[in-house]
């Protein structure tokens, strides 16, 4: 059996071909085509902005709150798109897996790469939006790719783990749908963390242990304002500070291990 290895040339070719196909077919037949990759998150942002920033006045004293909100929704959309596609990947490509032998992880990675491409396009919009809003560029912007990589690693780990379970128990898709809905409120996308901190510092600290929250806050810190509350500044215990990273690493290792173990039987069980 071929050991999963990105350096193996033919696997890279297959990954490229599958990603190209996915991306090409995603907006096939729609008038605006690729533009939807931009429009969808921007529209979601517009709705949240009107409801939470204008009507409910969530922004408070946060500088550049619209950019702050857009950054959050962009990253959140990326996470849900990535995991949503990744978990479905093996089942969706059942026709290939039953007929041909190839490293199965390629299917999962290729389906999540479409979300990565969309994120990159959207980040350009975020940066343009930030500059218009008067955010001044800083060297900390260079740290954003590293943080995006952390979020992608987490999404990939979850996709491997739940995608493998999904082959046998399709319930996973529905459970994950509900879970992401709940997670959305457990992550400071629309509300500023200071709002939680004013009622309970413990709750705010708990929220910041979530790697998704940690990444979103860190990217806001690097990109927009150093007034952002981050896991590093808010949590004092050095061991607790490391928890978000530890979660990401554990999910990735556990996910890939489980996926590899189960992948031998995918062809029979789909």
């Amino acid at each position: 059996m071929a050991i999963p290895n990105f350096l193996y040339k033919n696997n890279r070719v297959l990954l490229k071909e599958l990603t190209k196909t996915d991306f090409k077919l995603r907006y096939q037949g729609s008038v605006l085509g690729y533009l939807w990759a931009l429009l969808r998150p921007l529209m979601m942002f517009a709705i949240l902005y009107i409801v939470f920033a204008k009507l409910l006045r969530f922004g408070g004293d946060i500088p550049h709150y619209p950019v702050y909100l857009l950054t959050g929704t962009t990253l959140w959309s990326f996470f849900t798109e990535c995991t949503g596609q990744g978990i479905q990947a093996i089942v969706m490509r059942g026709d290939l897996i039953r007929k041909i032998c190839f490293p199965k992880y390629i299917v999962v990675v290729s389906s999540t790469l479409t979300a990565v491409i969309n994120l990159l396009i959207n980040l350009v919009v975020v940066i343009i939006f930030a500059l218009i809003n008067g955010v001044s560029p800083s060297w900390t912007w260079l740290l954003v790719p590293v943080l995006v990589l952390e979020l992608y690693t987490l999404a990939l780990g979850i996709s491997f783990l739940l995608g493998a379970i999904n082959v046998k128990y399709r319930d996973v898709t529905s459970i994950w749908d509900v879970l992401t809905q709940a997670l959305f409120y457990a992550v400071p996308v629309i509300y500023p963390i200071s709002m939680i901190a004013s009622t309970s510092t413990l709750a705010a600290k708990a929220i910041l242990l979530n790697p998704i929250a940690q990444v979103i806050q860190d990217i806001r810190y690097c990109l927009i304002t150093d007034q952002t509350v981050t896991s590093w500044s808010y949590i004092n215990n050095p061991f607790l500070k490391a928890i978000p990273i530890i979660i990401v690493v554990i999910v990735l290792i556990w996910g890939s291990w489980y996926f590899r173990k189960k992948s031998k039987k995918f062809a029979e069980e789909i």
Partner: protein
Amino acid sequence: MKEETPVVISVKNLHKSFRLPTERAGGLKNAIFNRLKGIKGYNTQKVLNGISFDIHKNEFVGIVGRNGSGKSTLLKTLAKIYFPEKGSLEINGTLIPFIELGVGFNPELSGRENIYLNGALLGFSNKEMDAMYDEIVDFAELRPFMDQKLKNFSSGMQVRLAFSIAIRAKGDILLLDEVLAVGDAEFQKKCNDYFAAIKGKQTVILVTHSMANVREFCTRGILIEDGKIKLDSTPDKVADAYEKLWG
């Protein structure tokens, strides 16, 4: 005579069984219920029951047997789609499996894109596909259509394209499941001529129900019944045995 040619596939004591769900064991709910009630929720069916053979270079092997005898499972195990639970499988050389024609074909992509995608799935790089591209298109006789979307191909043209990839892909061993000739009468003749020409020059493993094909193209036949090899002999003897048993 056979001792001189190298062994390309060596199968020893291959076992494979499937778990067949007894009732609706799919879904989390049933899995939990079955666990609580202490039922397994599945029956084990033995599909391959100790299969052993060696295939030498340039043999054209016809595998025959009734539906459910384990032929396709054997082929999928050779293609490494299924993992054997017991026994060993050794393959020397690149193996091109065609369990089904046109795997991964996408109707929204052009003919050309589909060739490269299919090639990538079979493990060929774009460069390797560049080298085979012309031969594939020429064999399929579809050059004027290559930039059209596949959905605009007639079904006959689609199988012709898929089939041409199958036989023009540069692999050492070709696995085919019940397809030898596709398309209209003229194209079928072309396929048959092709297989007659490569008989004894390339390693091919063919699963088929057509004893005429076995007699015409194969250099060896293997008859499978209930997951075991019943007869491994010349194509004529195997075809006779098959016809005597179930003809």
